[in-house]
């Protein structure tokens, strides 16, 4: 069930009321049941896989901690990672691998293999990383293995973040699931604020932009440069609002249950460099990749060249994590190269940051790069991506016509879109310096209620008609 669905609007209040009504010692059992019900609403069969993966990693953690020998611990870790990643590979990457193998098989005249008919379980990329992260943390001694299978399964399947993150760490989430909780009014109110913000981003921006983006990407040859440029920029905001909106709702729902999830976005489009962008975008994934791939590879505790190679490998894996398509790998690769370039250009970047004009230039270069790289992310294949990028500026020599054809298909919705994007931009910029939710909390009661009412009215008035899935569900 989607967060923006009638089903969830019924599910959440029931879960909330029962959760706080039952004694604390039963809450993790109830959380587990609610999470499994939430997950099975997509497809009841999915539950088998998540339970299986939870049990593998649970027992791996126990075995690692019990075994005294380091080599055995390492072996168990490797087996667990192979098992978890192997299942992810089968469900997500097998057909992609076979497709590419068959290309080579045709060239060399060797045996081909058939693709298998397999459904990608929702959220598998997210919870697989959580299971691997847990086993690695136990191995590295960062956390004790969880003794209760119920608690552990509740951690892996915790419904607010199950299908699209944030990718939580066991040291953050599991203790909160286990600890005795009293209802915290301020935390719950903050949760509602996060949910309002998330719904605003998802319903008023992402869902409004989606039909236009989908239409242009489905048939780019039918549109001219202005329309393609608008679709490119719209997707930049669609994916941000869709994904960060989901994260905000997840954080908010979790706060209602007395649990704090990690922040996943921090105004990414205010970044002045691609390196800074990755400090602000999908933070849970980028820190996971840093801690479990980049650092184990050597991180930057080696030569500069080696460190850059480690970085590129990390970004390639990040790209591949997003999807079984070379376009995602290429997207990861160019981001990796851009971050490496930022390392070499650090002095120049620091110098430019000292002036407003310099900052503006840095922002423009970074934002343009992000827009164009998102094309690779969104396009079905390289041909489509190259067509889009190659035609973005077509017709710009006639600016009036360029703008007109770019805006014509959604001119009815344009004022609403501009208003909502404007509000979001202001929020993200102000949030860099001030904790807006704290400021709201400190405001007089009348002002607070006016703000809440205004947000609700904006969502009701400007929300899109059609409900769509969250983009990151496909990962």
């Amino acid at each position, binding site marked *: 069930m989607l967060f923006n*669905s009638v089903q969830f609007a019924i599910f959440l209040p029931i879960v909330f009321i029962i959760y*706080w009504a039952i004694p604390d010692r039963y809450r993790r059992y109830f959380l587990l049941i609610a999470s499994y019900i939430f997950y099975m609403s997509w497809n009841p069969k999915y539950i088998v896989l998540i339970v299986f993966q939870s049990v593998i990693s649970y027992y791996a953690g126990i075995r690692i901690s019990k075994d005294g020998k380091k080599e055995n611990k390492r072996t168990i870790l490797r087996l667990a990672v192979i098992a978890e990643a192997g299942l992810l590979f089968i469900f997500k990457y097998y057909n992609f691998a076979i497709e590419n193998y068959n290309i080579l098989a045709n060239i060399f005249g060797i045996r081909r293999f058939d693709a298998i008919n397999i459904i990608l379980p929702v959220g598998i990329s997210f919870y697989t990383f959580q299971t691997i992260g847990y086993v690695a943390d136990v191995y590295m001694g960062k956390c004790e293995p969880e003794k209760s299978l119920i608690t552990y399964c509740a951690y892996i399947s915790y419904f607010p973040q199950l299908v699209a993150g944030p990718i939580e760490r066991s040291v953050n989430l599991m203790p909160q699931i286990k600890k005795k909780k009293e*209802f915290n009014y301020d935390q719950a109110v903050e949760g509602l604020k996060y949910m309002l913000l998330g719904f605003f981003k998802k319903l008023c921006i992402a869902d409004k932009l989606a039909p236009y983006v989908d239409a242009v990407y489905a*048939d780019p040859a039918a549109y001219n440069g202005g329309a393609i440029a608008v679709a490119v920029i719209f997707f930049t905001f669609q994916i941000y609002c869709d994904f960060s909106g989901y994260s905000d709702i997840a954080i908010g729902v979790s706060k209602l249950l007395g649990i704090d999830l990690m922040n996943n976005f921090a105004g990414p489009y205010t970044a002045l460099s691609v390196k800074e962008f990755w400090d602000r975008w999908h933070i849970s994934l980028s820190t996971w990749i840093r801690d479990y791939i980049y650092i184990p590879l050597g991180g930057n505790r080696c030569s500069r060249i080696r460190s850059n190679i480690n970085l590129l490998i990390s970004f390639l894996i990040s790209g591949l994590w997003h999807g079984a398509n070379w376009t995602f790998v290429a997207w990861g690769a160019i981001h990796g190269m851009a971050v490496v370039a930022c390392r070499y250009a650090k002095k120049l970047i620091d110098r430019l940051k000292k002036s407003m004009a310099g900052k503006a230039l840095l922002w423009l270069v970074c934002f343009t790069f992000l827009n164009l790289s998102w094309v690779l992310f969104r396009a079905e294949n390289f041909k489509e991506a190259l067509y889009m990028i190659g035609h973005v500026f077509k017709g710009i020599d006639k600016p009036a016509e360029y703008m007109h054809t770019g805006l014509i298909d959604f001119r009815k919705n344009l004022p609403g879109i501009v208003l909502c994007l404007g509000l979001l931009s202001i929020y993200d910029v102000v949030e860099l310096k001030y904790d807006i939710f704290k400021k709201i909390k400190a405001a007089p009661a009348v002002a607070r209620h006016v703000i*809440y009412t205004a947000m*609700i009215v904006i969502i009701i*008035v400007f929300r899109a008609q*059609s*409900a769509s899935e969250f983009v990151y569900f496909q990962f």
Partner: protein
Amino acid sequence: MKKFILKLIPYVTVMIIVMVVIPYVVDPYNVFHIYNMRNTGVTPNERIIKMKYILDHPDKYDAFVFGNSRVGSLHTEKIEGYKCYNMTYSVGAPSEFLKNIQTFIANGIVPKKIFIGLDNMSYMSDEELHRTDGMEMPYEYARDNHDTFFNVYFNPVMVFRSLKTMKAGKKIEGIEHMLEYGWWVDYGHATVTDDGNLKPTIAEVRDVKKAIDRTIEDVRQIKELCEENSIEAVFFTNPMHYVTYEECVKNWEYLYFMDELVKVTYYYNFSYPNRYTQDSGNFLDTSHYTAEYGDLIIEVLNAGRKDVDTINKMKYDNTINSVTTDDLCILIEKEL
């Protein structure tokens, strides 16, 4: 916790009133008031209303007419040998008719005969664009997409915008007998005045050939579905006002449509230029023909395929003109 819930109650209450109660009560498109439809001045969602009505009364009809609003002139109670219902709805596309017929069959309603009216709007309509429109949301889409249904019909903004139309006092034709017959154009309807400035009824389509090919494929699937279920399917092209027809054939598209259609099925061609389509007295506007003209079509459909000579020699009398009807319709059975 108590303080939290108490503070939430006013917000939740107001939201339920604004987002659920008011839209449900006002219901400009009558999707919640199928059996006590109000003439709100807003065109009701006939797709949802008619499908729900037929599914609630599975044994009442054994034949249906499908088509866009143009077939709304056909008084289907005059179809001989069948209890026929008019499933006309605005800008209806063959892809929607196909889904409706599939829904009927899945619910045990297997008609003996269906009539499908086609014309330029058949390929100029895009079902996908109907999905988030209160007036045009298809029944099957509404049934399977609860969240979009909620967003569209439990939408206070939509209700607020409809109030202006509702206050204007305009009445929608055909509501009184929508459930009994389905047609909306009654006899004696005023016709359009031909002052030489009439505008054709067309819609903008990005890729016309693709749209036509897709529509023809939908027609083929309807025909196949009917054959599989022993349903007699009769296709015809609606009469088109000459201004609209000329616009559609100017860029070859309607001719291409008709040529492709005969590859799939024979059909009665009422749309080609003849003395009736040249006469604005037979049309409400450059899109819809009169109920009187609809009766002539029904006579042809009643006569059936065997009596081609009869079709071509029928008389047509009305109080305005008396003309011979030897060119009312051509039966198209093979490619020219």
